[in-house]
């Protein structure tokens, strides 16, 4: 395997594995904080138990999120040396700001929370989980500002043979980055909401700790419904931004080959990349122009408008996008169903079963979303500015192949153990009420 492909695969493995744990961290920290706040306000012990129960799952999940995050910071230097040299002036500072603002806060206060049950007043203890949640979300903001810059670079000037910062405010308030943030973070909240709903449903169906899980369920049902709906509306805005800034990604997402006025939206197709056409397709006329540019007659650029070496992989992008959107629709419907039954979830066992089976689906949706974002950006590492192939470090293929294999084996083992522990403690249920 050549160095470029091994490095690409290694980055993909590291990023996708890391992103199995990050979304639950983002959402479950906030949900735990909400449960603990209700406890502090009302004194209802069930909510303290809820904070402890969901908080423990949060901690198990957090462990792998943190350690796999270090890999990503290392990799820009180890495997993407020329990228780091060329854009480090901008990208590196965003990572450093993330570490300074968020990582210290997160790592310090998660320990304060885990070790502080008997040492801190309830209010200070509750503050610790809020600070942890805040820090996780600040971290998401800065890393998405960094990624947003790779998607749509702004505020730079090419000087001294590299991209140098010219306008910091433009980088920080990059519209693309904020839309990405407002898409990714609520998606993480939806995943976390379905996690809580799914685990609660499992216990409710077994009539285990019914009162406890009814309370957890009610909060999570409201939460999930709100963010599923938000996500759907925001997703549309984000898509519109992609249409304006990343035409090759849009064309690949839609498997659109020819540039058309009044372009149709493809519900289903089998893209044939070799022959630059779709083998079979079901289309809705003019819908793509309407969705992307808010006019039925707007022109949408097709893939053939770009040289083949500037097109992203079509099948992967097209299918990932459809999986994400399809699941997103299902999440809206199911979360509204849960919202309707939030006071008495046991009256609908069918809904509870659906929630249990849905628990893994947001993981698939959110990884598919990243596939669209990152694979759809190819062949660029920084859209329009630098190609991935130009960024890779001068390493030997053996070096990279060895670390790639090590990652696959190592992460697989850790992932299995972590998910097993999560399932184990989720099934075990909350600690019994203290006599």
């Amino acid at each position, binding site marked *: 395997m050549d160095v470029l492909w091994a490095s690409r695969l290694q980055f993909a493995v590291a990023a996708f594995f890391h992103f199995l744990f990050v979304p639950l961290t983002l959402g479950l920290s906030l949900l735990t904080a909400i449960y603990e706040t209700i406890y502090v306000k009302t004194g209802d012990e069930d909510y303290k138990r809820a904070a402890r129960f969901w908080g423990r799952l949060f*901690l*198990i999940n957090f*462990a792998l999120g*943190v*350690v*796999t995050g*270090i*890999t990503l*910071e*290392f990799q*820009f*230097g*180890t*495997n993407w*040396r*020329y990228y*780091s*040299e060329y854009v*480090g*002036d*901008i*990208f*590196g*500072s965003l*990572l*450093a*700001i*993330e*570490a*300074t*603002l968020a*990582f*210290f*806060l997160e*790592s*310090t*206060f*998660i*320990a*304060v929370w*885990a*070790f*502080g*049950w*008997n*040492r801190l007043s309830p209010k200070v203890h509750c503050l610790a989980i809020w600070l942890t949640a805040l820090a996780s979300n600040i971290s998401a903001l800065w890393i998405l500002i960094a990624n947003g810059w790779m998607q749509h670079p702004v505020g730079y000037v090419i000087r*001294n043979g590299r991209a*140098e*910062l*010219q306008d*910091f405010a433009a980088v920080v308030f990059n519209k693309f980055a904020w839309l990405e943030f407002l898409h990714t973070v609520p998606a993480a909240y939806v995943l976390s909401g379905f996690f809580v709903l799914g685990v609660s449903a499992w216990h409710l169906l077994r009539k285990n700790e019914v009162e406890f899980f009814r309370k957890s369920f009610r909060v999570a049902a409201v939460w999930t419904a709100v963010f599923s709906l938000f996500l759907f509306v925001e997703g549309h805005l984000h898509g519109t931004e992609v249409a304006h800034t990343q035409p090759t990604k849009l064309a690949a997402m839609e498997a659109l080959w020819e540039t058309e006025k009044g372009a149709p939206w493809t519900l289903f197709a089998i893209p044939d990349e070799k022959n630059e056409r779709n083998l079979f397709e079901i289309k809705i006329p003019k819908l793509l122009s309407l969705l992307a540019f808010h006019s039925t007659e707007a022109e949408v650029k097709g893939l053939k408008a770009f040289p083949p070496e500037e097109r992203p992989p079509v099948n992967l992008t097209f299918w990932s996008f459809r999986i994400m959107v399809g699941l997103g629709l299902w999440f809206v419907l199911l979360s509204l169903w849960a919202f309707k039954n939030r006071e008495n979830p046991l009256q609908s066992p069918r809904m509870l079963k659906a929630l249990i089976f849905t628990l893994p689906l947001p993981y698939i949706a959110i990884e598919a979303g990243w596939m669209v974002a990152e694979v759809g950006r190819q062949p660029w590492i920084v859209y329009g500015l630098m190609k991935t192939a130009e960024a890779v*470090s*001068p*390493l030997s293929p053996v*070096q990279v192949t060895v670390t790639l294999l*090590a990652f696959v084996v190592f992460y697989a083992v*850790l992932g299995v*153990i972590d998910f097993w*522990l999560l399932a184990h*403690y989720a099934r075990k249920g909350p600690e019994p009420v203290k006599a």
Partner: protein
Amino acid sequence: MEHNVFQIIWFVLWGVLWAVYFVLDGFDLGAGILLPCVAKNETERRAIYQAVGPFWDGNEVWLITAGGATFAAFPKTYAVMFSGLYTALYLLLFALIIRGVAIEFRGKVESPGWRRFWDFLFWIGSLIPALILGVAFANIFKGLPIDEKGLFRGSFLSLLNPYALLGGVLFILAFSVHGATWLAYRINGELRERLARDAKILWIFEAVVVVAFLLFSLKLTPLWNNYLKAPILFVFPLLAVVGLLLIPYFLNRERWLAAFLSSGALILGFTAWGVAGLFPNLFPSSLNPEWSLTIFNSSSSPLTLKIMTVVAVIFVPIVLAYTFWTYRTFSYRITKEELSYAEGY
């Protein structure tokens, strides 16, 4: 202000980040290295985990920030260093992953075999980073075979030269003593007596290796040249030596916190000695001094350095404040009763 001023500010901050990282994470890495040697039973092992539990994760962030600051302030050094030292860095990374996971997972299943397994990984995951960091810094002090394009002309094995290995041993010993003094400060009873005794024995080796390393550096590295130019810098090696000498002094008087702080002074002084000796280099080339990466030829633009300075000036004091508060809140003495309702791990 001039670009140069900010480059120098970031050189100093770069050194400070590494020094704080070694002083803080040093004691929990040391605790991990000592674990299998000093703890005799499960209660004692749990006491050791409890003594580092609330801190290790925050401590490790200083490493991430040191890496991030290198990327932000000196992107070319970050790019050349990380790609050049590829294999060593991945070993460090895998060790840190194993270690973090071991701390979190070991208490999650009630089984002696499960715990022994993670204890072993915690030990390995603490030993390897200490070794690699020592070897890496000694190699940087000495200079690395970097050509004019910033390509690393050596191999992983060429990093394991005698001087660098001495640096690795130095880090292992310094962290072990550091960890032992921290644990002696935190833990009561028979285990503390053993820790104090081990710390004193390890200290003898530590003292020999520190002195040997400083002397070999005279012959094998250009580090001491800066000291002749600016004798004020001698405060750093002086701090290291004073810290070194005070460790057994306080151990003999059972002043555990003072012994720990002395060990911290040694690590701080030693790191400052090395970094000040490097100036203005960050990654010196052993092939040709012209090819060295310095703070002047590898830094970010003036605007980025200015913005980063503002961020650091505002947030580093805040970070230090809540870190200090956490240490005060959780530095209680660990007794058997404490362990019975211990939280976290």
